């Protein structure tokens, strides 16, 4: 590794955490900068700062920190899954939607909110139905070895089916359940707790770690299936491995935060425009880029109005113009 790539690697690793620390200052309850530094220092070494204001401490430790950690992990997971699936399916427009993950999770959350009330947590139902949707896609299309098109088509069909089921549940939902459900469907981090971090965090990390290890293999898998096979790849087995890892990461992300669009497209494409298509670089940088993007979008969601706006709306409102600008500005082909 040269000195220059070393610097960029360090920056890619540190930047999301730097944004996370700065984002601690943002929120509806204003904490003065001096108090903020004092409280953070007190949280790191309690013995030297015994006189912490309990309100500040509670807000930082139990509301903002879990939320920001989740934003970081969710942004990284969605971006990483998007990058991997785009390579696997040789299609730049693929993200977690295409395997039915978002629709399955949406239906699961709706079902739990409407039918089971508080007995069965929507996060668990969302995760379960997201996995079920992907399992259905693989069961229907997985038999055909020849091409990726059957999987993409089946994904569209399964997603549409769960959309219809979701509409059915929404039709029968009570106004209260409906409000909670819409809050969830728009993509939201406002209700993030440490429990979400503990439950969904390890699943996101496991899926992301697996994709990170597969980063060079994704270059090989992005060739046609005949070529991949001639290069020594057991195509069907490795295809399912990538899909499983991407599904775990993005389904866990969706289950705690709802449907957050565009992160899986913006992150990977920004990175490819900057460093080219080699997934050895794209995969780690996409994770970093997605994490920064969702942290910043969440900051905007908390800052712009006096009340909060669902972050899923912001990822689109912020993401699409950035994307269009880069498409127009970048003359060279980056794919």
């Amino acid at each position, binding site marked *: 590794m040269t000195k220059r790539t070393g610097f960029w690697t360090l920056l890619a690793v540190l930047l999301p955490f730097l944004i996370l620390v700065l984002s601690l200052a943002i929120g509806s309850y204003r904490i003065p900068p001096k108090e903020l530094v004092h409280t953070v220092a007190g949280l790191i070494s309690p013995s030297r700062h015994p006189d912490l204001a309990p309100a500040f401490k509670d807000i930082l430790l139990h509301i903002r920190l879990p939320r920001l950690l989740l934003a970081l992990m969710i942004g990284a997971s969605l971006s990483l899954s998007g990058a991997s699936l785009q390579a696997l399916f*040789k299609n730049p427009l693929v993200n977690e939607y295409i395997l039915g993950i978002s629709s399955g999770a949406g239906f699961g959350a709706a079902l739990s909110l409407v039918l089971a009330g508080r007995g069965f947590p929507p996060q668990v139902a969302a995760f379960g139905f997201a996995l079920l949707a992907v399992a259905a896609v693989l069961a229907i299309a997985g038999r055909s070895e020849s091409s990726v098109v059957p999987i993409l088509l089946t994904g569209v069909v399964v997603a549409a089916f769960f959309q219809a089921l979701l509409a059915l549940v929404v039709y029968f939902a009570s106004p209260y359940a409906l409000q909670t459900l819409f809050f969830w469907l728009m993509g939201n981090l406002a209700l993030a707790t440490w429990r979400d971090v503990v439950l969904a965090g390890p699943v996101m990390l496991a899926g992301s770690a697996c994709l990170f290890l597969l980063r060079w*293999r994704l270059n090989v898998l992005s060739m046609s299936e005949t070529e991949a096979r*001639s290069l020594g790849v057991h195509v069907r087995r490795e295809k399912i491995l990538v899909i499983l890892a991407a599904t775990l990461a993005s389904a866990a992300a969706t289950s705690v935060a709802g449907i957050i669009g565009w992160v899986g497209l913006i992150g990977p494409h920004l990175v490819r425009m900057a460093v080219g298509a080699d997934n050895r670089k794209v995969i780690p940088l996409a994770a970093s880029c997605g994490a920064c993007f969702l942290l910043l979008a969440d900051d905007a969601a908390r800052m712009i109005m006096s009340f909060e706006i669902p972050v899923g709306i912001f990822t689109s409102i912020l993401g699409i113009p950035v994307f269009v600008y880069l498409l127009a500005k970048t003359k060279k082909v980056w794919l």
Partner: protein
Amino acid sequence: MSIRVRRLAFDYKDFGLRVAAIGFETSRLTAVVGPNGAGKTTFLKCLGSLLPIPAGAVLIDDRDLVRFKSRERARRIAFVPQEHGSIFNYAVLDFVLLGRAAHLGVLATPSAEDERAARTALDYVGLRAFAARPISQLSSGERRLALIARSLAQETDILLMDEPTTFLDMRHEVEILDLIHKLSREAGKTIVCTLHSLDLALKYADAMVFMKDGAVLAAGPPGTVLSEALLETVYGIPIRIRTVDGRIVLLR
């Protein structure tokens, strides 16, 4: 490394491939020729186990090809397609590096040694200066060379090539075939390639295989196997064989 085929049968809709027995020897360049739809590419893909072989056997040094694991097979047989099928615009060196997949585990990334092997392959085909160039900026001829370099980075004894000269002008046709011929002689590779051009096959190949309608009609060294009757049977048009300056030429 030698290849033997025994009673190979492959059926696809209303097309059937039937090859009773044929062999390919070490350090020899064999050209598979015949009209469009004769089954040349299908036959080539069966030789590389890129299509499942439903009946019969392909033996690599007397070992049945279906018994090889994916990676084992890819260390012995490399396949050079007409075009690479990726939308992603890799740098040429990264593209050639993909050939090393045959020597690496699923979770591995290429080492400095793998990169050296890829650079050696690039040097061999004369693309050293193009290492950092995006693959989309290469001409068709250069892209063909990059594909060959990738198969060389795979370090196999057997090379299967699908129409290595299509879409190339006459000079690049000759350059590519000179390179392929050199690979069979210097590097001792067993090479089987499908070719459209009979003239090039006659000039370069050690052996020719004539195919039509999924069957092998004749096989052997060009000098012995070639006849006007055979050409008329294979292509369905009269073709005259003449000798000019000691070389065989075909007149249509």
